[in-house]
């Protein structure tokens, strides 16, 4: 890690500056290196800090990766001195930490994935520039190594050891002589492990037991629970395979189950399963149900026949569609707060003028969670809307006044 390709005295060496230091001397060092005013870099870091704290992250990374002015080794280089990046485990470790950081940054802290990837690529590029990351060098046998091999071969042939020097002199003077390596011994093929078959047997026994429990009406088992059980057994099989037995093909089985597990978790509970295109148009507050549920199809809740006073009496409406479209139509001059959740799909807001719907708002993605207000305040009516896979469509009669207060996804 510390074996850099340039000398500390080189004029092109990037170092953190002592003279132009405000915090860690990163911008000062960059300014000296590129021959520009350090404030250009300072302003760049400040501006980038407003984009998901990218400027702060890059500054800290630079502080750790760029050596100090009177040093040849960076702070991070000191931590990982002697670390072998060609080691599979270490490389996997670094990659997994990067993947975890990406997932946490994008899905938990809702920082733009593009910024995180850009920062990661920037750091990788910098490490490549410094020579910290490079492909493993092909090692050429040294002359000493060739002499050693030659001596071994000759002593095996019964040639006197005294002749070695002459042979070596000749080989060095002309070109390196090809040395014959002893033929590799073929490793005996390990006997087939029964781990894979054992794991699949356990998986089938577990799944069939679950099915029998459900058929016996002991308890209801959801589709995702079958997928989770299958995935759990495969996972345990692979973990056992880390120490005992071996069955790499279980990875392929796991990869096949993963999307089934994900999408089955978005399906509705079997108890709530229903299908169709129901349309509800209550004409008074008493006719409004507390909740509306649909398994698959298009459900429309048309509240346009209700006045603002009646809707304020309703207070809260829950509606969910597992697979399909959920449409809520609101009358003009009624304010509502919408709490929308979509597993996979989109949330749209549209205006209706003379029976024509025009979408003015659209947000799509995976695990979309949005809280926003529709119409004029006070937005007393609370709409808790949920769609597993599909679309939530808010249709407003008149000009849509929309304010997004929270957005995830």
């Amino acid at each position, binding site marked *: 890690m510390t074996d850099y390709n340039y000398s500390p005295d080189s004029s092109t060496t990037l170092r953190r500056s002592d003279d132009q230091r405000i915090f860690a001397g990163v911008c000062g060092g960059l300014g000296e290196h590129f021959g520009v005013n350090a404030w250009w870099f300072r302003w760049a870091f400040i501006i980038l800090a407003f984009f998901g704290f990218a400027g702060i992250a890059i500054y800290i990374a630079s502080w750790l990766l760029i050596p100090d002015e009177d040093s040849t080794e960076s702070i991070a280089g000191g931590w990982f001195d002697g670390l072998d990046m060609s080691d599979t485990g270490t490389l*996997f470790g670094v990659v997994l930490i990067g993947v975890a950081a990406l997932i946490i940054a994008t899905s938990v802290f809702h920082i733009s994935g593009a910024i995180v990837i850009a920062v990661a690529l920037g750091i990788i590029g910098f490490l490549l520039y410094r020579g910290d990351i490079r492909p493993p060098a092909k090692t050429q046998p040294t002359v000493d190594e060739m002499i050693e091999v030659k001596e071994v071969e000759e002593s095996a042939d019964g040639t006197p050891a005294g002749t070695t020097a002459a042979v070596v002199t000749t080989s060095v003077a002309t070109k390196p002589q090809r040395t014959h390596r002893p033929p590799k011994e073929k490793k005996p093929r390990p006997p087939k492990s*029964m781990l894979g078959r054992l794991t699949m047997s356990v998986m089938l026994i577990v799944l069939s037991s679950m099915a029998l429990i459900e058929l016996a009406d002991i308890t209801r088992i959801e589709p995702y629970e079958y997928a989770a059980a299958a995935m759990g057994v495969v996972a345990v099989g692979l*973990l056992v395979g880390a120490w005992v037995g071996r069955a790499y093909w279980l*990875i392929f089985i796991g990869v096949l189950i993963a999307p089934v597990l994900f999408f089955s978790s978005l399906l509705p509970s079997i108890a709530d399963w229903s299908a169709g295109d129901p349309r509800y148009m209550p004409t008074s507050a008493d006719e409004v149900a507390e909740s509306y549920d649909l398994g698959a199809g298009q459900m429309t809740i048309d509240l346009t026949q209700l006045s603002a006073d009646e809707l304020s009496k309703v207070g809260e409406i829950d509606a969910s569609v597992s697979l399909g479209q959920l449409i809520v139509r609101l009358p003009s001059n009624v304010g509502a707060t919408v709490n929308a959740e979509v597993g996979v799909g989109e949330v749209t807001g549209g205006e209706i003028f003379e029976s024509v719907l025009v979408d003015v708002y659209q947000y799509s993605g995976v695990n979309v969670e949005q809280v926003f207000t529709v119409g004029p305040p006070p937005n007393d009516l609370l709409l808790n809307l949920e769609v597993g896979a599909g679309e939530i469509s808010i249709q407003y009669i008149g000009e849509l006044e929309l304010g997004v207060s929270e957005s995830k996804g």
Partner: protein
Amino acid sequence: MNMEQHRFDILSFIFGALFLALTASVVWSVNFDFGFDIGAWILPVAILVIGVALLGSGIRTALQRNAKN
């Protein structure tokens, strides 16, 4: 057909741990709602822990090598 003990196999371990974390993450997300989505954290934290463990192992090896030299 056998089940012989062997050297630690990193590939099996990583995929086994990831699949287990994925299962836990989905089951948790479907069944529990505490207003704080722990399910969203399980998978990245599991990946992070595995990554740190592997990197830690590499650092330990490097330190041992340095101590020998």
